[in-house]
């Protein structure tokens, strides 16, 4: 029963939403389903938050290695939650000065804004910036001309890398813009590669992905694939 009911719900809701796509009056049901999913996911956050607290509290109580970091996690989690939830340090909205919690929690100068501006923003930008370092080490390690296709790939990579900078423009600026060979200018070649070859490759992968999604969805709707519920068979 524990697995039969979810399978039936999946099948019925899935078929209804597919059919609704062809019935103009029912087309908004898909958006309703998305809204319901959002509500369920929000409720499920309580589970996630609880798990987070449990894992880190256990680490602290058992004094496992790195327990100090768990203390920081819990401390910052609680502080951010409190500052945002209780609007600590937020002045009331000038239009409603007598209502203490009418102010905008994200307004400039509030503690919540300060946490976002001086903690969250730099940390997120730093993590994203690490990509530059990792791509360099990946390029050194992995981009080898092992066969003909790899050589083609490397040549294309060089054109794109140069084409995205002033170096590409500089190297082929002697080729006239209006002449018959203007397509050999590096910046033109890089745009052509992106618009033609790259687009074709992307489209092929996307077609394969779409078919994979259709097949997997069908198996899930029909209950043929139940491993996401647990057990698989």
């Amino acid at each position, binding site marked *: 029963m524990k697995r039969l009911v979810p399978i039936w719900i999946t099948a019925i809701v899935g078929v209804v939403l597919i059919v609704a796509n062809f019935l103009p009056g029912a087309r908004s049901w898909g958006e309703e389903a*998305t809204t319901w999913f959002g509500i369920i996911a929000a409720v499920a956050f309580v589970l996630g938050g609880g798990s987070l607290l449990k894992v880190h509290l256990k680490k602290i109580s058992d004094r496992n290695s790195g327990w100090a970091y768990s203390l920081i996690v819990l401390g910052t989690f609680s502080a951010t939650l409190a500052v945002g939830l209780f609007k600590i340090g937020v002045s009331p909205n000038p239009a409603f000065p007598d209502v203490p919690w009418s102010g905008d929690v994200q307004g400039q100068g509030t503690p919540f804004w300060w946490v976002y501006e001086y903690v969250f923003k730099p940390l997120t930008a730093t993590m994203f910036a690490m990509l530059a370092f990792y791509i360099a080490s990946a390029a*050194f390690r992995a981009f080898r001309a092992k066969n003909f296709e790899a050589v083609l790939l490397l040549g294309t990579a060089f054109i794109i*890398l140069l084409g*995205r*900078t*002033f170096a590409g423009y500089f190297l082929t600026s002697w080729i006239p813009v209006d002449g018959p060979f203007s397509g050999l200018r590096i*910046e033109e070649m890089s*745009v052509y590669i992106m618009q033609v070859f790259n687009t074709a490759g992307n489209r092929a992968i996307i077609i394969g992905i779409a078919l994979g999604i259709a097949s997997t969805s069908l198996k899930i709707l029909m209950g043929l694939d139940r491993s996401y519920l647990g057990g698989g068979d």
Partner: protein
Amino acid sequence: MNLIDRMANIDRRWIFLMMGLAVGIPIIVIGLTGRTLPEKATPLAQAAFDVLDDLEPGSKILMAWDFDPASEGELGPMATSFINQCARKGHKMYFIALWPVGAQMIRSSTSRVIGGYYPELVYGEDWVDLGFKAGNEAVIKTIVTDFEQYFPTDARGTAVGSIPMMSGISSLADFDAIVNASAGYPGSKEWVLYAATPLKMPLVIGCTGVQAPQMYPYVPIQVQGLLGAIKGAAEYESIVNNWVREDRMRETLETGGVPDAQAETLAAGFLADPGAAETWTTGAEAASMSPAAKTDLITLATEPTPGIFLEAQRRMGPQLVAHLLMIGLIIAGNVVFFATRRRGGAR
């Protein structure tokens, strides 16, 4: 251990250090000298500019900022230049966000550009911040027919009925163009699928480098202008900066009594040769202009562009060195690979 062996077993932290220097040194040099690399605009960046330039002043532009601080490095300069062009052209700007932190991106870009350089623009009459709305593509699907359902108030809590520029906005079709800065989902693809295609509206997209390949198939029918990564941002920024400078010079000349056609030609000339402005003001043609106007003209022609409008072009310097480093690393890696393979074959 010879050089090849050393290179084959190099600690990746040396590569990180090289990349750090490749990015850091140009930033310092550009910061100290203030000089940037020249940018030549590609047709895509020019098309993005033309979409907004071809609209009449006062057109309603929906600006959707769907990015976060992580991608602000690539998309922040685009957002700045979009606002710069629209503000200078006199378009009405309506800001929304489909990402939670997009609301902060709106505040940040509007306070820096409008607050710093267009203080005469009035909130509620020239621009409005409608804030973030949860729902991903459901928001777009709904505002195509009913805008107020998702945006009954602006980000400050004011009912849209009280905001003058919201008058006459009942659906997405009431806008003249959509400008979207996007870092992922929901973003450019959703705006193409659910807004621009059914309504056949002009759509200009600024997106990250990894997203750009997926957007190329939509150009030019569904997407009229596409700015990909910091390169696209730099090209667009340079077009907008040149246009703003030229437009301000033209306005100064026209206010000073120079006929319109001549003012346009002169402004274009001074853009190409800033020093010519001072020479021209001493001539007979400039007799109709007041001394204050002449000073303004010279200042406009020669003053450096504010740093906030050069962010993308500044970042092209580190990008150039970093890309050259990557090419060097790829070549070095292949040298090591072939040398090792030959050595293994010889054995």
